[in-house]
């Protein structure tokens, strides 16, 4: 059989499809981070510990499993302001999509090189008219990628510090 070419695709492109087609208002930002994929995703996927450290208006994240095979993970998220919502979450390596009744969030990552990772963050609102309100709601949906990059550096520094102590 002839080997017909198959187009490349990755989770970051997939998140762009979600951002471009989601009802309401969704904003996506991406950056190439100076860390390998496994490192980036171990920080990003540690939702309870790291989401409050870098995502706007997230104070606490409490995960719970639904107990049903194949059903999405659930998280109760409280914000610094009025955010109190239960999110359904699809989480797999390089991919996280989460939605509550009013809010849509997502992350995607794929290796750019052995040492760098393309990482994207999506924040959005799921109600009609959200596009008109988007500028006013930017603190909730704005890009926190700089904070995520700083968190990544901090985690790496801490790990190096711990390894140094162990070696000493």
């Amino acid at each position, binding site marked *: 059989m*002839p080997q017909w*070419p*198959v187009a490349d695709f990755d989770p970051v492109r997939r998140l762009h499809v*979600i951002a*471009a087609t989601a009802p309401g208002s969704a904003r996506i930002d991406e950056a190439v981070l100076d860390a390998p994929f496994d490192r980036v995703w171990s920080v990003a996927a540690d939702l309870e510990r790291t989401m409050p450290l870098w995502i706007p208006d997230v104070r606490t994240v409490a995960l719970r499993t639904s107990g049903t095979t194949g059903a999405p993970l659930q998280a109760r998220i409280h914000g610094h302001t009025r955010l109190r919502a239960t999110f359904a979450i699809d989480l797999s390596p390089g991919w996280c999509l989460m939605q509550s009744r009013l809010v849509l969030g997502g992350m995607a990552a794929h290796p750019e090189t052995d040492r760098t990772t393309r990482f994207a963050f999506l924040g959005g609102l799921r109600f009609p008219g959200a596009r008109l309100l988007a500028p006013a709601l930017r603190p909730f949906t704005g890009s926190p990628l700089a904070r995520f990059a700083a968190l990544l550096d901090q985690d790496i520094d801490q790990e190096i510090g711990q390894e140094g102590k162990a070696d000493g």
Partner: protein
Amino acid sequence: MQEPPPGLAELVRAAQGGDQLAVGRLLDLITPYVRRLCGPIALDDGADATQEALIAVFRKLPQLRDPAALFGWVRAIAVREAVRHATRSARSQPAELGELPAPGDPQLAADIRDVLSRLSPEHRAVLLLRDLEGLDERETAALLAVAPGTVKSRLSRARLSFRKAWQQ
């Protein structure tokens, strides 16, 4: 083309209703097929063409009435988007048309990508739909919005180009 999997109708209805986790899962389901359609037509621009095709699919999803017809409906949108994208791309290098080997011809197995690169996106689309997807002339003509005679002449001229390319 793929057989519709169990639970497809419910998934399509949920995605049409604005459930973004359902959209994500539907993306998972159709992306491999869209990559196989866009790869041979858009070649090096396959990833961009796949992304644009998927955005077009999900923007039009509310128009899909019969979920069982999903894959045929996706094919029509994806092939048109891939041709449009490849035609627009500066890297598109339509060459003189000649002849393609018939299905099963060992010449086709050698390096189909190289031979495809010598054809225009429209001719690649005809070849894909006739030889890989198994559509007849009438179906191919309807999908590409051209006369059946155009499909016939494009296919025979494309096959001639293939033979000439390999005889050089």
